[in-house]
């Protein structure tokens, strides 16, 4: 298939976008690029990019009314690398506004529907990215993961996703939610697709100071032996998890065991505070990140009577979850509160990281379900922020601990279920190799 044919097929599959997966489709641009896509490992491959990543000349709304009409003047490093490798960006995908959400329902431009069941959420915040892969529009998508934002849609939509180790993938061009916890992250139909994306995207970038120390990503060479692989399974990972999710995950674990892996019961006491620590840090960093949006240099400018009024009006168009997080972040970092809230959250983060480090001396990987439940119905949780936050209980710890985590869609009847694995920091390649095994043994048939 030529590049142009691939683009046409993607556009055809997309059609009128009944899932609301895309906020912007660059049809003509994609066709033009297809005609002169550079040779490279992703030559002619059509990809989607989450709309919180900058692509010069394309809109970048972060799914917010505040940035409606904003056109990015520069391109995110990961997208630059993808395009240099020959990939063609079909368009920008929908997300929770400024990536604040776990279902996709917080987009100012309507939620993304789950291609497997349009009455249900696609998972967030990379909802459009997940849907674009699940709907077969693209095979590869770039999202971002702060506390589960590619793994949730991966699990809910039935696609593979990886949250990389910190510092491995440049964040230059990714609009900030929680800078110390997040990175651009690949989503794909298969685990092999994740590896293809990582090979191109990962690697040090002088434009992101946090990538300087990371070792380069090299795909795992040869077979990963399951013989004697120690898989830690904390019981906490199954607490409060619905049966329809727990069963196929335990079955997948059993198949790994049958192939020679050892399942080890482990304890991670710090997990008790992981969700709280995650959200408090998220709020604190988000409030800081959102300071820049005041309508001065870009974005919606208010018509207030004076400077302060205009700025406040400009920021009034944020959605409720964004406002909640900004106010909470302001609260936990304010002078009198900082020690008790932000300080404690940092300490809890430290505790989680230490706990994971200790556990990875006993086992090679941790495994369990990606999400506590399968895709819920639209509207079911969105009115109750705490209920929404609870979706993240199994995913946030990897971001806090600074370790890689991936989700593999399991072969199940009905709604998709994701199987999550986590490994020590920097073990992304090996983790992908293990995910490949899970995919072969228990995954969705290609």
């Amino acid at each position: 298939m030529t590049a142009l044919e691939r683009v046409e097929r993607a556009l055809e599959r997309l059609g009128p976008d009944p899932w609301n997966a895309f906020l912007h489709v660059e049809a003509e641009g994609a066709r033009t690029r297809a005609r002169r896509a550079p040779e490279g490992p992703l030559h002619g491959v059509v990809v989607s990019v989450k709309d919180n990543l900058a692509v010069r000349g394309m809109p970048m709304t972060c799914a917010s009314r505040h940035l409606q009409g904003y056109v990015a003047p520069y391109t995110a490093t990961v997208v630059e690398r993808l395009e240099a490798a020959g990939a063609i960006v079909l368009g920008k995908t929908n997300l929770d506004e400024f990536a604040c959400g776990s279902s996709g329902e917080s987009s100012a431009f309507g939620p993304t529907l789950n291609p497997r069941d349009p009455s249900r959420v696609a998972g967030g915040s990379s909802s459009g990215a997940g849907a674009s892969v699940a709907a077969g529009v693209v095979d590869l998508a770039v999202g971002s993961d702060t506390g589960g934002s590619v793994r949730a849609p991966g699990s809910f939509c039935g696609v593979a996703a990886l949250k990389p180790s910190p510092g491995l993938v440049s964040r230059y061009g990714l609009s900030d939610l929680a800078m110390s916890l997040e990175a651009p992250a690949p989503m794909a139909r298969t685990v092999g697709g994740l590896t293809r994306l990582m090979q191109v995207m990962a690697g040090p970038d002088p434009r992101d100071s946090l990538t300087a120390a990371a070792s380069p990503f090299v795909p795992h060479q040869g077979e990963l032996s399951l013989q004697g692989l120690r898989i830690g399974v904390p019981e906490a990972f199954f607490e409060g998890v619905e049966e329809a999710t727990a069963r196929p995950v335990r079955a997948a674990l059993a198949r790994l065991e049958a192939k020679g892996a050892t399942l080890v019961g482990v304890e991670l006491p710090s997990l008790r505070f992981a969700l709280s620590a995650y959200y408090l840090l998220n709020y604190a960093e988000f409030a800081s990140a959102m300071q820049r949006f005041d309508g001065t240099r870009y974005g919606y400018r208010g018509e207030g009577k004076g400077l302060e009024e205009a700025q406040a009006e400009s920021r009034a168009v944020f959605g409720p979850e964004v406002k909640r997080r900004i106010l909470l972040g302001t609260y936990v970092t304010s002078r009198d509160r900082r020690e008790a809230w932000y300080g404690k959250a940092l300490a809890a983060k430290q505790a989680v990281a230490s706990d994971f480090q200790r556990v990875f001396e006993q086992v090679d990987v941790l495994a369990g379900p990606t999400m506590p439940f399968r895709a819920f119905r639209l509207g079911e949780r969105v009115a109750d922020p705490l209920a929404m936050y609870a979706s993240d209980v199994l995913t946030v710890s990897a971001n806090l601990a600074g370790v890689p985590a991936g989700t593999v869609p399991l072969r199940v009847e009905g709604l998709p279920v994701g199987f999550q694995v986590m490994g020590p920091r920097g073990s992304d390649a090996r983790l992908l190799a293990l995910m490949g095994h899970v995919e072969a043994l228990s995954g969705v048939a290609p």
Partner: protein
Amino acid sequence: MTVRIGLEIHVYLKTHSKLFCACSARFLEAPAPNTQVCALCTGQPGAKPMGVNAEALRLGLQVAQALGCTLMPGVRFQRKHYFYPDSPANYQRTATPHGTNGSLEGVRIRELHWEEDPGAYDLREGTVDYNRAGAPLLEIVTEPDLRDPAHARAFLAELRFLLDHLDANYEAAGLKADVNVSVPGGERVEVKNVNGLRNVETAIDHEVARQTEAISRGEPVGRETRHFDEVRGVTTRLRTKEEEADYRYMEDPDLPWLPLPPALLSETLLPEAPLARRTRFETAFGLARAEATTLLRERSLADAFEALASTLPPAAVAEFLQRDLRGELHARGLTFTASGISVAELTALLSGLGARSITPQVATRLLRERLDFGRSLVEGVRAEAAEKGTAEQAVGEAVVAALAENPKAVEDYRAGKATALNFLVGAVMKRLKGRAAPDVVRAAVEAGLGNLR
């Protein structure tokens, strides 16, 4: 109780690029507003800071050394949050101090730290230009140890000296300061954003006088923030805010810990700090403070001085460099470094002067030819000395011949007739066809007559 004055000085560091991005830091050379900008320094969504500017780091460490500070093992950049149009992201990246507990001219230096400049907000026009946003600043915070305006002047002069020696300041941009003044009976008043040393001195003068007068009239002086009006040279009240700002300082998650290890310090710090070196110039070479200060203002000139003073009389070298050389350089707007004049060249020039093989006037001419046409001083001195030698030889020969040809005049001279000398000088001049200075010839004839005895 005394007058207490403290300063928070912001020095624009002399770098090519900004603190966290590679845009040019020479913002006064920008062709138009918002031309030397990028995604980072205009706060575009998703932009991230790059590694910290190594030159800004070097200069900041050298200033800390020059002020005798204790150096910290490392620094962490923080975010200082506030909403203002000149701030690209409505927070400023500002580091924890890298130097503490220094002193200068009897004033304790509390701390030094790096921070980025915001953009330029033109309040009258209501416009913002981000060309300078992200430019590297060094903030120097003093304790309120300045006693009076004169003390402040002396302190600032010393600071200027250090910055010149280190070539640390983007001269065209200069520096700016917040000035804190309290007089006995009154509270502390802050005058914000005073531009340039001269204005700082004026602001201090004005504020001390204003507060003292108010107190003497029985008017209270409470804590407040004021603005300095450059045009009128006075301070005016700024709107006082009811709430004290909460900047919600947090460690910048994009910028990890910046270590300042011994290896970095040993390759960055000067082998000799400026004040110590100046003291050594005074004691080892017997220079006055003012002379030493002048020589040390430009490090390469000071290095040249030391090299020359090891073989030539220091006083003479000092005087020549300070007065003659600097005079010519200054007239041409050149630094010593930019002139490219080498120690070898200066050695030739100064040796020639010392040996009198060239005159001061010739030396000046050679210096000008060097600066204006690039003619090597070594060559120039050699040529002049040769010519002078040739000339001297010619004069000597002419004198010998003239004395031999005019025995009667010689007799007359010996007999005490003064006019005979003039006659003989005339005879030599005639032989030389006038191509010699009369006083040189006269001296040569006298010497020749003396030798005949």
